[in-house]
């Protein structure tokens, strides 16, 4: 397992290096003068010049790259142009909200989807299977923000069962926290749940047709045991893969969901950063979200070796 992690880490680092170069280059691609945009409409020539200096735009891209890497190594991602807060501090403050949403959405999706998918596969061709398959196909076409809007309208605006927005920290008020994250997490869970149902069903159908499963059934091992022990672990690999891919989509979908439910997460920060031309914040958020995704992939890869011993060593 360690070697898998090591190999993955070896590919993550160059990717992050490319990404950092990419986000630094983005600023050079801005149509017009980024310094003038940041300095604002009423800026004098001197203001613009100072902004240019502050953004480091007078340095060559190589100098900026090395400088950014050096700062990054010390945990310094620059300072927000809008709030003058260190970027790393702002991101750390926003991260728990987004991570909770992502985690809860994936957990809900997993808990709902895996049993449904397995059942649909076992009862393949039945009415239950067809209903589950059609509902999940339909659910995949519903973008998270649409579900979020419907949930907030029905359960927060029309009936005030849940708050329509705002975030309560878990440490302050666990009940308030649970209420504040329920609807957004549900909105984010539908998409991965639908995808997971399809993948689980497909994987289990595939495994159930294998010879060793047929043999186990023929030997008189109870179906329950065959499905759980023989089929379960082998079907897990594609399911975990999809879970990893879905994590990236949920993290992206969280941007819109955070706006709908006014949650102060990474997505809200990203939106503000874009609206206020806050380049260092944009760079930091792109980098941190990519690092999260890559880390997630690392965990997924490592889990393969648990589910499939052939991949060990």
């Amino acid at each position, binding site marked *: 397992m360690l070697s898998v992690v090591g190999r993955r880490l070896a590919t993550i680092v160059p*990717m992050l290096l490319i990404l950092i170069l990419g986000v630094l280059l983005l600023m050079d691609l801005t149509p017009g003068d980024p310094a003038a945009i940041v300095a604002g409409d009423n800026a004098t020539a001197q203001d613009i010049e100072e902004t240019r200096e502050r953004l480091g735009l007078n340095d060559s891209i190589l100098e900026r790259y090395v400088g950014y890497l050096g700062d990054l190594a010390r945990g310094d991602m620059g300072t927000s142009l809008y709030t003058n807060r260190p970027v790393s501090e702002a991101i750390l403050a926003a991260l728990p909200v987004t991570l909770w949403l992502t985690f809860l959405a994936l957990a809900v999706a997993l808990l709902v989807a895996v049993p449904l998918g397995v059942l649909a596969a076992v009862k393949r061709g039945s009415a239950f299977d067809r209903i589950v398959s059609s509902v999940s196909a*339909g659910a995949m*076409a519903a973008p998270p*923000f649409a579900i979020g809007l419907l949930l907030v309208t029905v359960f927060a605006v029309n009936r005030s069962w849940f708050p329509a927005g705002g975030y309560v920290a878990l440490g302050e008020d666990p009940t308030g926290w649970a209420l504040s994250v329920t609807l957004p997490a549900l909105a984010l869970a539908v998409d991965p749940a639908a995808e997971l149902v399809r993948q689980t069903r497909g994987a289990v159908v595939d495994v159930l047709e294998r010879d060793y499963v047929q043999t186990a059934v023929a030997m008189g091992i109870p179906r329950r045991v065959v499905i759980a022990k023989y089929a379960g672990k082998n079907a897990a690999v594609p399911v975990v893969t999809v879970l990893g891919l879905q994590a990236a*989509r949920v993290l992206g979908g969280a941007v819109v969901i955070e706006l709908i439910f006014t949650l102060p997460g990474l997505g809200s920060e990203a939106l503000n950063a874009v609206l206020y031309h806050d380049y260092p914040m944009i760079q930091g958020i792109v980098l941190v979200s990519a690092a999260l995704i890559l880390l997630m992939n690392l965990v997924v890869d490592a889990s393969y070796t648990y589910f499939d011993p052939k991949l060990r060593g």
Partner: protein
Amino acid sequence: MSGTAPTRKKTGPIGAGMRPGTKGGRPGKGGLGLAPKVGLVFIAGLVLLALVGDLLVRTDPNAQDLLRRMESPSGDHWLGTDAYGRDTLARLIAGARLTLVATLQAVGTAVVLGIPLGLVAGYAGGIVDAVLGRIADSVMSVPTLILALAIVGILGPGLTNAMIAVGIVFAPRFFRVARGAASGIRNEPYIEACQAIGCSPARILLRHMLPNASGPLLIQTTYSLGLVVIAEASLSFLGLGVQAPDATWGGMTREAFGSVSRNGFPMLPPLLMIFLTILAFSMVGDGIRDRLTRGRDGKRI
């Protein structure tokens, strides 16, 4: 339909070359299934609506009638009016046109960026492939919407800019498919023969590698169309896509959400259109995928 007639040849230009020697595999299943056909019909209807819709509903989608705001559906306004008294049906149709154009812009950008680079990477191999592949991986490691946001942040808000951003974000998908197809056949005898008789690399890429990738690329394109509709709606909902007073369905949803506490209805028509359009594209995508891949392993899960 009984399985007696494997004689029915499938001579579709795309599927034909994909599965040699599987003629007897699944008789009588040559066409698309029912769901993909329904999807195709829906999309065709949508395109038609976008083209001639303003002949059906002659109301100006941007005309405000401030005395008749937030009305429920009636004979005058079949789908009611929005917070400015604009006709929801007229905006829905105008939105269909803009949404479709925007979707094509984004997928076009992704195709133009992704496919040539992918073919070149797959054909050239070596360092070119490694560098381009790493860049594609890096782009794909950032969540779609966050990267699109960042690029819109650089280019500035606006529907075209937003769609260019989405196109850049989707380009690696096409890159990967094109690269895979190209690198899969680069050592085939017919490619080497072509090189030997002096074909230019451009000819090899366009005449031999691109057609080889056409099936998977078609599947990718169809799925991407649906995903781009989501991305467009999301960005317009965030206010970074379409700008007032123009309408896309995402933009209409944003406007309707602003007055949701008074009336939730205006949100429903655009949301329903978004949902149905994505569903249609995904049904067509499934249909094409089944048609092109079925038979190779002889079964369909």
